[in-house]
Each structure stands twice: as C-alpha cells, then as structure tokens.
C-alpha cells in the first residue's frame, strides 16, 4: 500500500493524482493524502509528491476533454476544500469519470461521485456565504478592506463577483487563515498575493479610520428586526457564529 503526499494546491493535488495513477500499483493499492494532514500507518509506504506544472496540466486537460468542463469545475472546487480526504476523493471520482465520461457527474448513486459532489458543494456554499457576509471597511486612503477566516480557500471563488461589482474601487479581500489576499486596483484585473499577517496589521494600523456608516448600519441592523418574531436559533442557523467575527454589525 502506498500513500502519495500532496502539497496543498491544485497543482500539488493534480500531480499526486498523476503519480498515483502512473505508479501502476492499481487503484486499490494507492491512496492520496495531504501533507501534514494524515496519520502514518504501519505497512504503508509514503512518497512526497513534488508539484509539477506539466503533469498537473495533463490531468487538468484530461478532465476537461474526457469528462467535461463541468467536471473540472467540480474538481476545482473540491480541491479548495480544507478536508483532509480531498485529494483522494478527487482521485476516486476521476476513476469513475475516465470510465464513464461526461455522464459520470449524473451517477450520484456511486459513492465516489457523491463524495466529490458533496465536497464541491460545501466549498461552493461557503464561497456563496462570503458573497453575503464579507464586510468592507473603508480605509483612509479610500481602499475597501475586508478580512475573512474561511474554512475553504474561497478567495479565488469570490473575487470575480466583487471585480464585476466594484470595477472602479480599490479593494482587498484578506484571508487571515492562509495569509493571502485577493487585491483589486480600480480599473484593473484582480490578483492573488501573499499577505503576511504582520503586513496586514501594519496596513490597518496605518490606514484605519472611524467610519460614520458603520454606526448607521448598526442602527439599521438592529431596528429592522421585529421584536414579536425574534428567533436567535433561526438567525444562528443562517448566520453561524463563526462568520460573525469579521462582520460589522456584530462587532
């Protein structure tokens, strides 16, 4: 039994898939893991997978060609998940995918298909929730700044929405878990960049400013609730506490 240890990136996972497939050991004798997110077991052999752009590109191309563009999007989202089993779930799905082609995504009765769907759906849901719950703070220099602590790596999924919405603004969406940010300059394309915490803190320290609209928003938020219908359970259900950490109305 052999475990392939992938780096946490699409390239890392795809390279792992390539190597595991290519090893010729048979699907039932290989398993993919994420580096630093697995428990070594006896009688298992482990191999570190070095990300390789070419192998990764081959896997990506095969998914698009032999399964479908939709399948690629599903896999892409699943790879952004933080769940430790993500690389292996994608691998198992691809076995079905390369066997059945485009219809594979409809075969939800198969565990491998259902699993990748589930993973992908969770990431998509989380990304959608960030479209809702991201809050920008207006800084002195006019930049709109937002910090988030997502479970999945969602910034590449949410940035296009805000680029379309605020083409004329400078904005930053900062993932403080992964210390990276999507950065948009007015009139330009957005980019992802590393953004160490110290740098983010210094930036905010320097540019933070009291903003009258924060208080106005809080007034609105509290007034709009109907007392006779109050229901904190329902509120928590839709807006779990862990999102609130960065939300203006709860600060």
């Amino acid at each position, binding site marked *: 039994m052999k475990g392939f240890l992938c780096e946490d990136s699409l390239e890392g996972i795809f390279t792992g898939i390539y190597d595991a497939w290519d090893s010729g050991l048979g699907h039932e004798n290989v398993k993919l893991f994420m580096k630093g997110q697995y428990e070594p077991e006896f009688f298992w052999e482990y191999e570190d997978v070095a990300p390789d752009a070419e192998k990764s590109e081959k896997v990506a191309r095969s998914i698009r060609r032999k399964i479908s563009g939709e399948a690629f999007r599903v896999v892409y989202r699943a790879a952004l998940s933080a769940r430790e089993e993500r690389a292996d779930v994608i691998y198992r799905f691809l076995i079905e995918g390369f066997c059945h082609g485009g*219809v594979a995504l*409809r*075969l*939800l*009765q198969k*565990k491998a298909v*259902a699993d990748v769907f589930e993973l992908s759906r969770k990431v998509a849901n989380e990304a*959608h929730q960030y*479209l*809702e*719950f*991201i*809050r*920008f*703070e*207006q800084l002195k220099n006019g930049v*709109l700044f*937002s910090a988030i602590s997502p479970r999945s790596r969602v910034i590449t999924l949410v940035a296009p*929405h*805000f*680029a*379309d*919405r*605020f*083409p*004329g*603004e400078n904005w930053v969406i900062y993932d403080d878990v992964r210390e990276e940010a999507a950065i948009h300059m007015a*009139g330009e394309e957005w980019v992802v960049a590393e953004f160490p915490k110290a740098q983010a803190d210094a930036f905010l320290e320097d540019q933070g400013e009291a903003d*009258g*609209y924060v*208080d*106005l*928003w809080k*007034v*609105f*938020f*509290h*007034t*709009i*609730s*109907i*007392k*006779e*219908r*109050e*229901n*904190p*359970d*329902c*509120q928590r*259900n*839709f*807006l779990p506490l862990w999102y609130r950490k960065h*939300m*203006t*109305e709860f600060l």
Partner: protein
Amino acid sequence: MEIGKNIIGLQEKLRILSDAAKYDVACTSSGVDRKGAGGAIGNSVAAGICHSFAADGRCISLLKILLTNHCIYDCKYCLNRRSNDVERTAFTPDEVCSLTIEFYRRNYIEGLFLSSGVFPSPNETMERIYEILYKLRKVYQFRGYIHIKAIPGADETILDEVGLLADRMSVNLELPTADSLRALAPHKSRDSILKPMSRIQKKIVESRQSMGQTARLERAWGVKSLSSGLFREESYQKRLEAEKDGAPLFVAERGAGLPSVRRRQDIRTFVPAGQSTQMIVGATSESDYHMMMVTQALYRQYDLKRVFFSAYIGLNDDSALPAPGTPPPLLREHRLYQADWLLRFYGFRAEELLSEEAPNFNVLLDPKCDWAVRHLEYFPVEVMSADYEMLLRVPGIGAKSARRIYNARRFGRLDFPDLKRLGVVLKRAHYFITLGGRQMFPVSLEENRITAGLISDNRKKNWKLTHEENYRQLNLFDDMKLEAAPEIEDFKKAAGGQL
C-alpha cells in the same frame, strides 16, 4: 455628500424610517442578472443575495426604508396611519442615495427597497421616489437592485417612468377581499390597488414583446412545465377527466426527457425582476383556502413573480382588529408559504390542497404530506419507473432529488441507500414508495398509521407545535425536503417566514 456633520440626525431618521418599513416582508433581491460595467457601481444576481440575518431570523438583503412616515391615509393595521401619534420624519433624496451607495460599497446590502407613506399626495410621493431612482441610476450609475413600492392612486405616467428604472415593483394587496379592505383601509379600494398592478403588468408585457419574449420564460418552473401547473389548464382538465376513469395520476412517457431549465438572457427594460404583492394573514377572518385561491388568481391574472404573506402583528388598538399582544399567526403564515411553494414549483393547485369543506391547513402535517395521506390511492409509487411529476409528489422527495433519480435510474437499478445519496428523506418517503417492487419496511398503506408515523417521526417538532408558542423553528425545507431552492434567497427566507 458630506454626512459627517449631521450623522446623529441621519441616524435618528434611519431609525424611525427603517422601523416603520420593517413590517413589509419582501426583502428579496432576486430575479435579475445584470453584469457590472466600467465607470459604474454594482451588479445584480438573479438568485438574490442575503447579506445578513436580523435577530428575528429574517434575511436582510436590501436597505428597506420609507421615504417618509408622514401619511394622509388611515389604514387601521398600520403604525404610520394618520391618527397615530408617532415621531414623523422624511429623508431627503440625497440622504437616501448616500445611504444606498455607501452601504452597498461596504457590501452590507444588495440595493434599495423604497416605500413611503402617502404625503402630501400619491403623485407627489411617487415623484419624489422617482427623483431618487433617477439620481441613483443616472448620476451614481448604480447597477444594484432596486425595489419600489407603487403608491396606490398615483398617475400611470409616473408609474411608467419608475418602472423603467426599478428592478421590481410591488403594490400590496394587504387584504384578500374587497370587504376587508373597505373595513380596514378606508382610503384604499380594491380598485386603487388592482389598477396599478394591471398597469405594471401591461407595461411588462409590452417591454417583453418588444424583446421578442413571452411571459412563459419568466414563470416559475412548476406553474408552466408541470402538467397540472397553474398555466396548464388544458392538461390539468385532461388529468381530471382521466382520473374519473381511474387512470393513474401521472403517466411516465417513455423516453421523454425532463424539460430543461432555460436561463433568461436579455434583461427587458421594464421592471425586469417582476412584480410582487403582499397579504396580511390573520387580521381578518378569511380562511387559508380563501387566501390560496386569491394567491392562485394573482399568479394567473397578474403574472406576479411572488405573493408574500405577513403574519399580522397587533400594533394598533382598534375594535376592528385582533387585540394588541395577540401572538402573530406564524404557523399559519408558514403553511401558506409552503403551499405557495407547492404551487410554484411542484405543480399543485390550491383546490388540490384545500376546499370549502376543509378550508384550513393541517396543524400537524405540512401541506404536501397532508395531501399524500389523503390520496393514498396514488401510492405506493415505483421509483424506478414513476413519472417525474409523480416523484415530485412523494413526501421526502424534493425537486432536486426527483431530478437526480430521473437521471440516475437510466444507468441501472437503484437501492435504498442510493436513494439516500440522491437526497431522498427515507424517513418520510418510505411509506409511499417501492423500489423494484419492494418496500423498504413492510408497512401497510393506511391513512391513520402513516399519519401517526409521519407525525412521530417529527415528535420533537410536533411537541413544539403543540406546546410551545414558538412555532418558528419550523423549517420549510425540513418539513418538505425542498432542498431545491431555485433562488438561494428563497431557501433562506423560508425559515424566517419571509419567503
């Protein structure tokens, strides 16, 4: 605008005018896809986006405010009525624009929902609303969502202009019958409400035609595609005829695929997100049957996008109304939303769910379960071969799981664990289905036993139903496994009773 100086004054206004607006339930930002554009701000997402959830669990999507709470009318159920002694104020157009734009930039909201008391006259109120709308769209280049409440009694010409800049318009019916309206809203009449509604409808039709589109494109899936949907009179009548002869409810056509869900491409110019309305539940004595028949008629005759229900909250002490402090009928409101959902997405009709003889919804069972146990003659349904529409009617099978079953069964036999993976809630569904001719558990199809089973399956919930005043934990999607929310917002609002 420089707001720093007058921030306290603005806070006060915002407090008063959002407080006065909060009883309107519609807060959806759905129905229109509009991309952003260079030099402008904002876009719109057809599925709608909720930005926060207030302490009452309702979604906050739009900046919901009144332009003013001054009002020359005296509707008995309304806090702003002329005869009430409340703090009164009004926003300036610039204040509304700045709040909208600045809230929007910070991603607090999807846009604006602007309504107003009638002051000093319907026309002048509507003109001021138009001024705000014009500024937002033309000066600020705002491409986010705007919902405008039409003021009954305003001229058509001004409504026509507003409709070209707003995404959604609504005229609230408030009360389902002309009599109730006369009793509670002496300055409004059925006519003054229905007139703007049909005007808006007419303009929508015109703008649609100019783009070569038909109404069908915008209608909910259930009302147009399912064979007993509200707009399928002919096939519904046929079904009724066939049933008399003892034919099964729906017959699967061999090899027939599911109608595909088409996305709307171009946005028409007039009220692209459609028209909605709202009715108050529990202020007057109409039955659920009556409410549903009116709802159905509104969908049919005015092609409304949505009908909202609002549980009456006793605010005014008035002999014509329930006493203040009467708990709002939240369960009833919830059942009406469930039924509305069944009309729009499941191809049910009001007269299938209720009748003159049984005019109110079952307290213990949701309308779909209730319908199923009253129609055991159609069950059990064989999952491997049943028609899509019949699958839709099985409790525990939602629109999405029905679609998945339909797709999956072509590739081979399914078993019960497979169904679970496809999203079926077997706890509910198992009474009503067979798979390859077998039931999951041997249970006989008897109304009492199934009802008892369905109820005890939700013992905890039902305990709440009968023992707690707080019916609110009920979740529509829990009840009916309606996981296929066509609009994400719908999904969220359902539980807040806001759908």
